């Protein structure tokens, strides 16, 4: 989505840039006025609204979407938190329930265990009591006299009491009817007493006095059990049912503990199981009773079990359900606490019992559940927070991104606007400046006194400087706004370099520094590229070097990248000096051009020699042969002040100089290097530099250029009807032999390079002493007496640098050489001195040599001087023709029939006037329509100048229609020889006339069939160039 919006805005951005320079001014004023509207952000907003109108809708949609997205984020977040809370609550409850359940289970387990045990014990006690009834039946009733007396019974009962763990004791009571009371009392020797009061029992229907007791119940002896309410009831129930009967709990006698009494009936005879209640009562002999002391005994029992402390046990008699009676345990309400109830079966079907258990303590707080759920909650909240923060963060970043995007666009548009503004303003400044310069020129032509003339000259110079600066700024702006178009034409690199050298010859002569150029032999003669820009780059660099160099040299050097790479690792010096026996190394610590140290050692003799070796020894490699491009390395080396280390980073920034003092000392704006680098980069090259303060600077740049050949050059020159930039180098020196004598190998190579271009065979003698050089030259020429031999040795000239071994040593050399060869001058090689400057005195010593060639060395100036030396005649008239060329504007235009189309009368008249002035016959048309009418094929005009902007039918459209008509007409022609080169015959050259040169691109013109364009009002040179192309076929 962002991308889409970017595209949109980019598009508007492009629209904004598409505003031509004509409208650029208006645009910039509009922008300015809007900037004044308000400070701060207002202009930014305005800009967005005004120029990014198509971008508003998508951005609004985006904002809306974002809002929706944000709402969703919030909802999701809330959902997440709610889900997290519910999960944690659920976890809490489930864990808690689990705990409670387990507790309950534990309780019930414990309770059941207790109940079962109690019941077990109880039942076993019960059974034992029943066994006792059997004992009584057998031994007491069955025998006469009784085998049991009180003592035996007590002993037996005590011994078997472990069988009745819950029983306090047992006793046996006998059934005595009222009729038998007296007899019984007599037999026993005691009276029947009442329970509780121990008083004499009043008369009843029957009695149940205790006869046999265990020791623990001895207090019951002789008491009538029928007198106790519970006992009586129990007895009646027991003898009727024939089973054991239990009382409800009550306070036992003596111990006053809660307990129950178990009663079994002892019958006189065995009864059948289905005996009726009356029969049972009839046969009743007595009653066996046992007291269960619950309170103490159950407690003893339970205490033996594990965790007896943890739970509270209650045993109830629930025969009467609405009012359960406590048999055991504290009487606390048990409704609130967790409890468990177990049924107890004590063997008496009438009585029901149960055991209720509960925990002694309240259930503990379920910490594990609480902590787990809280932990989950915390995690959920944390995650929620993190998500929220992340979403917020993302939003913020997106927001920032959008802002930055806007700012970036703003900045870019501002940058483009700046460049546009610069271009426009520079363009606008140039026009008045031309006026200023023209007027100054005119002023200087008038009669002025010396001071006035000086002022005028200064003003003129300053004006020219200003124009130059403006051009540079314009270049920079053009490059920055991407409007710089590079040419692709064939050119001769060596000639361009020579030209550049000649530009600076005056300056370096004043400064006394050496300026030399060297181009490797392996660099093709003709290259294809943009010569004007290349020239601009090198001129900039050399100019820069000249400005900052006061001694030493400036050396421009061009090699192939391949060669450079091969010698990238500089060989050791020692090897080098052995190799080169002439240089004994003592003097050659620095073997650069001038002998001064340079920042980059690549041009020192050590590497330079290797480069040369590669250049000459290796045949041009196959890859180089076949590939259509060559990669060149240009280096411009100087021995100037160098660039301070801290300033080296800023060197390529426009308007940056090393420091403020630099501009004070050396002037200039510092834009040149920036432009140079931009241009190099535009040509797909790269510029670097090495600099040492106080030593010098070497700028290097690599450029890929296409290879060309001389035929291309010729064709191009013809096509554009341009004069060859220089007259071709004279060929008359071809085959001559030259001997170059120098103390510096690099310099000798430079000399050789130039001489070789003239076709001269060159031998080099490098020697570090004048005297040895003299002798070696003599040897080379065969003999010290070389009057006859020298010519056969083929040496035609000896070139010696004036400063070969130090200032003026060259002059000494030539002097001594001349002196040695003495008067026999015939056939002696020409002795030529290469000098930067000559004093008058030196000039007067002319007789010792044949000619002095002034530096900087260039092939053409050497040729010129050599011509003098060898006495060739300079065909000046011929040269002149070459320079002026056959095609001045007048030559080109005279007699031509030209149609001028412009809707503006004044413009038309001026254009016509200009063309008439150059001898053309001019006809006019004032609209596109009229032009079409006049330009019906076959044409009577040789060319047409057409205004681009015309009402109704503009120049482009008119041209299109004319071309269409031409094609139609050509097709009607019989296809014989009239059609040549695949082009139709009827094609009138049409040139666009336009006021906005920048806007009218070449492509636009050619697209609609135009042949070129000229600016309005005419500029002579441009007009010439344009017209020359048109009439090229005619010549």
């Amino acid at each position, binding site marked *: 989505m962002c991308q889409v919006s970017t595209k949109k805005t980019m598009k508007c951005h492009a629209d904004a840039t598409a505003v031509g320079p004509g409208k650029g001014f*208006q645009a910039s004023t509009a922008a300015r006025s809007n900037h004044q509207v308000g400070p701060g952000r207002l202009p930014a907003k305005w800009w967005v609204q005004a120029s990014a109108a198509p971008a508003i809708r998508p951005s609004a949609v985006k904002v809306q979407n974002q809002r929706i997205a944000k709402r969703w984020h919030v909802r999701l977040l809330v959902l997440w938190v709610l889900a997290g809370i519910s999960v944690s609550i659920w976890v809490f409850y489930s864990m808690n329930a689990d705990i409670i359940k387990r507790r309950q289970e534990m309780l019930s387990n414990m309770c059941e265990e207790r109940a079962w045990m109690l019941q077990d014990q109880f039942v076993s006690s019960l059974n034992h009591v029943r066994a006792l009834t059997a004992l009584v039946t057998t031994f007491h009733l069955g025998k006469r006299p009784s085998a049991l007396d009180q003592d035996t019974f007590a002993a037996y009962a005590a011994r078997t009491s472990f069988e009745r763990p819950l029983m306090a004791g047992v006793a046996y009571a006998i059934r005595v009817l009222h009729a038998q009371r007296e007899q019984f009392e007599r037999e026993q020797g005691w009276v029947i007493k009442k329970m509780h009061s121990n008083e004499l029992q009043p008369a009843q229907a029957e009695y149940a006095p205790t006869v046999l007791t265990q020791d623990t119940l001895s207090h019951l002896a002789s008491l009538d059990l029928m007198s106790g309410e519970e006992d009586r009831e129990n007895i009646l129930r027991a003898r009727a049912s024939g089973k054991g009967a239990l009382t409800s709990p009550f306070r036992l006698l003596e111990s006053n503990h809660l307990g129950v009494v178990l009663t079994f009936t002892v019958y006189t005879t065995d009864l059948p199981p289905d005996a009726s209640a009356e029969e049972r009562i009839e046969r009743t002999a007595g009653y066996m009773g046992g007291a269960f002391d619950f309170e103490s005994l159950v407690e003893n029992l339970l205490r033996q079990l594990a965790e007896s402390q943890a739970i509270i046990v209650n045993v109830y008699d629930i025969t009467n359900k609405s009012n359960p009676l406590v048999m055991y345990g504290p009487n606390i309400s048990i409704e609130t606490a967790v409890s468990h109830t177990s049924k107890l079966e004590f063997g008496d079907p009438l009585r029901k019992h149960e055991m209720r258990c509960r925990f002694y303590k309240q259930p503990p707080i379920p910490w594990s559940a609480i902590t787990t759920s809280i932990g989950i909650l915390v995690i959920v909240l944390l995650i929620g927070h993190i998500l929220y923060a992340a979403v917020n963060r993302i939003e913020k970043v997106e927001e920032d991104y959008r802002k930055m995007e806007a700012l970036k666009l703003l900045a870019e548009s501002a940058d483009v606007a700046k460049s546009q503004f610069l271009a426009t303003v520079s363009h606008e400044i140039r026009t008045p400046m031309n*006026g200023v310069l023209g007027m100054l020129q005119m002023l200087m032509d008038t009669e002025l006194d010396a001071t006035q003339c000086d002022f005028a000259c200064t003003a003129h110079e300053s004006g020219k400087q200003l124009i130059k600066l403006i051009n540079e700024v314009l270049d920079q702006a053009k490059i920055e706004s991407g409007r710089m178009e590079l040419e692709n034409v064939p050119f001769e690199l060596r000639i361009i370099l020579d030209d550049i050298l000649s530009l600076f010859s005056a300056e370096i002569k004043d400064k006394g520094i050496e300026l030399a150029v060297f181009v490797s032999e392996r660099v093709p003669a003709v290259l294809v590229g943009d010569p004007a820009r290349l020239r601009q780059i090198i001129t900039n660099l050399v100019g820069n070097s000249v400005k900052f160099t006061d001694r030493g040299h400036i050396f421009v050097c061009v090699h192939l990248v391949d060669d450079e790479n091969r010698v990238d690792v500089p060989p050791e010096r020692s090897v080098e000096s052995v190799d080169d026996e002439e240089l004994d190394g003592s003097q050659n610590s620095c073997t650069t051009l001038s002998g001064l140290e340079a920042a980059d050692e690549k041009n020192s003799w050590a590497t330079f020699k290797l480069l040369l070796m590669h250049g000459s020894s290796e045949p041009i490699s196959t890859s180089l042969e076949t590939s259509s491009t060559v990669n060149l390395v240009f280096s411009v080396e100087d021995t100037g002040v160098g660039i301070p280390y801290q300033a080296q980073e800023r060197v390529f920034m426009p308007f940056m100089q090393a420091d403020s003092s630099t501009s004070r000392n050396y002037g200039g704006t510092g834009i040149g290097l920036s432009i140079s680098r931009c241009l190099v980069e535009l040509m797909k090259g790269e510029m670097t530099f090495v600099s040492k303060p106080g030593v010098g600077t070497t700028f290097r740049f690599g450029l890929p250029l296409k290879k060309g050949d001389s035929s291309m050059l010729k064709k191009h020159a013809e096509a554009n009807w341009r004069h060859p930039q220089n007259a071709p180098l004279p060929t008359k020196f071809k085959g001559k032999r030259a001997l170059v004598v120098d103390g510096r190998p690099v310099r000798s190579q430079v000399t050789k390079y130039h001489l070789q271009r003239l076709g001269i065979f060159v031998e080099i003698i490098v020697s570090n002493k004048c005297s040895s050089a003299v002798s070696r030259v003599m040897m080379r020429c065969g003999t010290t007496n070389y009057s006859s031999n020298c010519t056969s040795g083929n040496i035609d000239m000896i070139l010696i640098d004036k400063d070969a071994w130090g200032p003026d040593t060259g002059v000494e050399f030539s002097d001594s050489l001349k002196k040695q060869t003495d008067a026999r001058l015939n056939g002696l090689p020409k002795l030529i001195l290469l000098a930067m400057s000559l004093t008058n005195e030196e000039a007067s010593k002319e007789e010792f040599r044949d000619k002095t060639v002034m530096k900087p060395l260039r092939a053409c100036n050497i040729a010129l001087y050599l011509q003098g030396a060898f006495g060739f005649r300079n065909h000046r008239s011929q040269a002149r023709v070459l320079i002026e060329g056959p095609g001045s504007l007048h030559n080109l235009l005279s007699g031509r029939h030209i149609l001028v189309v412009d809707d503006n009368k004044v413009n038309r008249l001026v254009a016509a006037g200009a063309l008439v002035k150059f001898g053309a016959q001019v006809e006019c048309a004032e609209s596109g329509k009229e032009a079409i009418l006049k330009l019906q094929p076959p044409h009577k005009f040789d060319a047409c100048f057409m205004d681009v902007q015309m*009402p109704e039918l503009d120049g482009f459209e008119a041209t299109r229609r004319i071309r269409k008509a031409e094609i139609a007409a050509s097709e009607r022609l019989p296809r014989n020889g009239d059609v040549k080169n695949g082009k139709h015959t009827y094609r009138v050259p049409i040139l666009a006339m336009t006021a906005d040169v920048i806007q009218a691109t070449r492509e636009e013109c050619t697209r609609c069939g135009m042949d070129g364009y000229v600016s309005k009002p005419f500029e002579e040179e441009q007009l010439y160039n344009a017209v020359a192309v048109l009439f090229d076929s005619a010549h």
Partner: protein
Amino acid sequence: MDVIGRLQRQRTELTQALFKEGLLDEQFTQLQLLQDPNNPDFVAEVVSLFFEDSEKLLDELTRSLEQDPVDYKKVDAYVHQFKGSSSSIGAQRVKNACVIFRTCCEERSQEGCRQALQQVKHEFFLIKSRLEALLQLEQQILAAGGTIPFME
């Protein structure tokens, strides 16, 4: 001869003043260069054509601007014409005024256009009076039997 010399000096002064005040630029010099014995009245011809043409254009402009709504396209076309012809004869102050006029046109500012028109008119009549004086002077020189010195 004396008269001619005086007239010629006057002419030179007038021309220089025109350049100095920025009323004319080098294009006018170019124009003068085009005038040669084959075409002796070239400058006068061009200049008078310029006056004629421009006055028509100014009329049109005035009328167009009074209309409501203003047809800015049309106005712009006229101003473009005017700018072209003024730059052709080198009347650069008129040309500059035209540039401003076009800016106003682009902004669709009626008030701005009116002011710009006033400015253009002002500049035009200024250059017109000066050029007419110059041409008159040249006529006088020719009438007195002198020659117009060519520039350069």
